[in-house]
């Protein structure tokens, strides 16, 4: 469904991605883990065309989307809950969800809102509150809900667990699983919370300084001693 082939991305002179290859099959949850600054968020944003890949190709649904403008890529069925949540602060919860539904038919709106509220009942209570006044966890739920409103084929999640209490993180990962299993949405999940992410995902990739250094099934990576040392026990890794 998503095929990233040899992608390089630059911020000015800095090479943030140094030839990344990643495949995501339809129906999968694939996770990408790695330390701060590894290029995980850059990769998600490159998939969405901002910044554009300097070289390499990105295919979505067998079509080349490299170099397309962001809104065009979104209209093809990609949605992202980006780093930092990026809720529209002066729009209400409902209006934020309506923004998410921009690329679908208006007729779906009521059903889709109901299904988002079903996943996140808290948002229903807050529906007329402005996005900027929500707590971090609520904003994260809204960011995911907003992304779902476009009925995406592929959902890109950028560190949904960041800054959330362990209890909320657990609930959130349960919801991500539900979205994948019940609604059949393919999920590409970027996380630093490697333990939860690898347990949830079918497959995983490990990234360091702009390159994929390891790949495998979630269970294999969890069992891998290097992963354990680097990402699961608070240890540090040079690369």
């Amino acid at each position, binding site marked *: 469904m998503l095929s990233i082939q040899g992608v390089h991305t630059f911020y000015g002179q800095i090479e943030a991605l140094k030839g990344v290859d990643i495949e995501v099959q339809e129906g999968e949850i694939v996770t990408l883990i790695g330390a701060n600054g590894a290029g995980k968020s850059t990769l998600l944003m490159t998939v969405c065309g901002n910044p554009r890949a300097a070289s390499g190709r990105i295919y979505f649904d067998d079509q080349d989307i490299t170099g397309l403008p962001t*809104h065009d890529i979104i209209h093809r069925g990609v949605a992202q809950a*980006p780093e930092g949540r990026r809720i529209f*602060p*002066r729009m209400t919860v409902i209006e934020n969800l309506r923004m998410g539904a921009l*690329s679908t038919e208006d007729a779906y709106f009521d059903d889709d809102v109901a299904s988002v509220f079903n996943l996140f009942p808290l948002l229903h209570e807050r529906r007329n509150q402005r996005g900027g006044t929500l707590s971090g966890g609520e904003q994260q739920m809204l960011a995911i809900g907003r992304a779902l409103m476009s009925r995406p084929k592929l959902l890109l999640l950028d560190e949904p667990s960041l800054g959330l209490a362990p209890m909320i993180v657990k609930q959130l990962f349960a919801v991500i699983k539900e979205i994948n299993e019940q609604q059949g949405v393919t999920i590409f999940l970027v996380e630093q919370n490697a333990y939860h992410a690898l347990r949830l995902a079918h497959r995983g990739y490990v990234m360091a300084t702009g390159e994929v250094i390891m790949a495998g099934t979630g269970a294999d990576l969890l069992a891998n001693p290097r992963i354990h040392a680097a990402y699961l026990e608070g240890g540090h890794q040079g690369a």
Partner: protein
Amino acid sequence: MAYFTQQLINGLTLGSIYGLIAIGYTMVYGIIGMINFAHGEIYMLGAFIAIITFLLLGLAGVTFVPLVLLLVLILSMAFTAVYGWTLERMAYRPLRGAPRLAPLISAIGMSIFLQNYVQILQGARVKPIQPVLTGGMVLTQTEGFAVTLSYLQLIIIVLTVVLMVAFSLLIGKTKLGRAQRACEQDRAMAALVGVNVDKTIALTFVMGASLAAVAGVMVTLYWGVIDFFIGFLAGLKAFTAAVLGGIGSLPGAMLGGLLIGLIEAFWSSYFSVEYKDVASFSILVLVLIFMPYGLLGRPEIEKV
């Protein structure tokens, strides 16, 4: 009291015109954080297109006044919108992502260019026009002083109210309006939900330009003379109005416009005409000292 009422009417009329122009400043600022200093020139172009259309319609023998007004408004808005779109496309879009000063300088350049362009094409002398719409209604008559509301003033005020309501609905309720607000709040995120940011910004310029065109048409009718330089002071006043009301806020722009119009009208009639501009700019200074974000503006605090 009668004199006061008359000045109130005059002030509201003038204020409506400033308000219509101010909306263009405030919308563009809201969405790309830039002051479009060429916006006053867009208004001036609207006035010139209006005067040309009036003359052409006159030559063609169209004399039914409501029809003439309607045609002039539509044509003037359409042509001015094209100017607004072109301006954005040529002078601002290539500078997107450049330091903030660059589009500002570009805007000043476009302003000078458009003034000279009209001066060369149309000449530097003032252009008069025959009164198209005359007459009015006497509201009250006391002590030999009649308070009149001319039909033109009525049209200006009513048209402004109608446009304001229509615009508020457009921004608040439509897909385009939501896309504009999304771009204003977080442009990168707006693109991530599928908003075509470039198109939305271009449409913002088109909308602002067509409102300025309405102001241009109205001023042509109201004053009866225009020249290539009217955009400068009107633009400055409307910009003042937008800042006074709180730049980025639509109701603020309208409120600021009305206030500037009223201040000018009252100052000219009770104190001195010469210092009316000083009065409105002084009020701006005072408001900004005590309310730096303007009357209806919002401090730039972002919760992250």
